[in-house]
């Protein structure tokens, strides 16, 4: 169609926008290679690979990384179970309060993170729950549910109704239907949701500062390091690695949900 070509202005605006989104990230990457380790001198006086080695040998990086992985894995698992159950219920039946449920799920990300954080913190205080890995996980799982939910509910919508009935009609009981029909069909959506939840948890800092005790997840470690640097390029090396590492699940999620109605990652 003749009009189906973007105007030059639109193209420029779109790509300028993308550029705006990417230059700062490139900057981080550049600083991961700088030879200067105290100040952020621009342009960098020289480039080196030594910070990768330094980073590798820093035990605190490994500790923070381990904690982050642990928290992200457990929160994701919890969110997967809870988000899927919720999505199943909501897409299964119309019931009173159905709207409220979807609102409730969205709330932890629709309200500012600091609200979630401070609310959880004061609740833990009131409840006398000491801050620990558990409290971090509680917080993370709460806002990860929605990511799984969003992905799952879109997929459930696609398979609900006739397909489930067809299965029952052919003699399968509820559990068989779940095993043979539901699970294979929502599998990729769950995987995508799980990946996004994982990435979300892995990068979370605001809620975590409130729910963490003395442990530092990777972002908390980074917050400390950015403000009180020991070897600044190390922070940038870690940041770069985190970007690259979270990028893989995102990519995976994209390919898993492509063509579907879900917008993977839309609900960070």
């Amino acid at each position, binding site marked *: 169609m003749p009009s189906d070509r973007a105007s030059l202005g639109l193209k420029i605006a*779109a790509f300028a926008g993308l550029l705006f989104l990417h230059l700062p990230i490139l900057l981080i990457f550049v600083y991961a290679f700088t030879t200067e380790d105290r100040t952020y001198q621009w342009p960098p006086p020289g480039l080196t690979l030594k910070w990768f080695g330094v980073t590798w040998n820093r035990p605190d990086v490994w500790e923070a990384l381990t904690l982050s992985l642990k928290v992200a894995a457990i929160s994701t698992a919890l969110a997967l179970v809870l988000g899927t159950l919720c999505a199943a219920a909501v897409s299964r039946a119309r019931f009173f309060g159905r709207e409220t*449920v979807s609102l409730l799920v969205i709330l932890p990300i629709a309200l500012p993170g600091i*609200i979630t954080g401070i609310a959880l913190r004061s609740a833990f205080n009131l409840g006398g729950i000491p801050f620990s890995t558990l409290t971090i996980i509680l917080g993370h799982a709460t806002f990860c549910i929605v990511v799984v939910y969003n992905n799952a509910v879109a997929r459930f919508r696609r398979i609900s109704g006739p397909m489930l009935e067809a299965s029952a009609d052919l003699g399968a009981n*509820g559990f068989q239907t779940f095993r043979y029909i539901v699970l294979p069909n929502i599998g990729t959506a769950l995987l995508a949701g799980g990946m996004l939840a994982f990435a979300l948890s892995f990068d979370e800092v605001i809620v975590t500062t409130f729910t963490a005790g003395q442990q530092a997840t990777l972002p908390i470690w980074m917050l400390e390091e950015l403000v009180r640097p020991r070897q600044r390029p190390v922070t940038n090396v870690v940041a770069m690695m985190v*970007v690259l590492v979270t990028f893989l699940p995102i990519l995976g999620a994209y390919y898993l949900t492509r063509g579907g109605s879900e917008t993977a990652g839309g609900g*960070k």
Partner: protein
Amino acid sequence: MAALARLTDPLSDLFWRRPRVLLVLLLAPPLLWLVVVYIGSLAALLVQSFFSIDEFTGLIKHEFTLKTYAELFRPANFDIVIRTTVMAAAVTIAAAIISFPIAYYAARYARGRMKAFFYLAVMLPLWSSYLVKVYAWKLILAKEGILTWAVDGIGASAVLNAILALPVIGGNSLSVSYIGTFLVFLYVWLPYMILPLQASLERVPQNLLEASDDLGASRRQTLRHVILPMAMPGMIAGSIFTFSLTLGDYIIPQIVGSSRNFIGQAVYAHQGTAGNIPLAAAFAVVPIVIMGFYLWVAKRKGAFDAL
């Protein structure tokens, strides 16, 4: 397998006879979680906002009072509320404007590889470490930072200085001005606007655009009368994020800004450094109320489907 099926049959039959039982079983865990852990916490927070603290020892007095709310309306505190809301609105509007071409291009013109490229190009910054992005901006905006370096390089320092000389939003350098804070907010939350906007633009059927064209509308008219109104739910969904995230952030204005507090900082400071949990809670109620209203409007506009 069949044997197992026989075992589960009675339960399956029960679910068929009493569908509510299944529904309750499905809903119970997530609802318990969300209601007990999350809503419970919010309630706990809300309750605290009706307490007050002993000014000297900093210990909470567990007695009902509205004193803390009165505190919220003192000029110094009220300024914070206004300042934050205005910033959130400005960021949201700017994000909508900047997002639109990107989302529009990605939704309507990008195909195949280009589409994947756009998707990933939006996702990458979204998922890059928030802290590192903010810190990168500090380096860019600093008085002796990269932007100054670049602006000097192209000989445009006069322009930069003129911008910095603007009252209220200007300042000594970009990194200590509202402009700087605004830029960083805008940068960090932009992807949250692009994604839902793109999703809703993708949902505008091609044939509506053709219909508009067919009825004699120019491209601009089609944009104004068909595309924009139909992209509205997506825009509102995106603005839920940009607005809410700006309302609640405390790290950005602390690293890039003029030390004037935002709600997030106030909440953080009052609960953390000042130990004034009741006032922090009262501050926290502000975004809850604002977002509550916002969500209500969004729901009526059907923005949830675009989330």
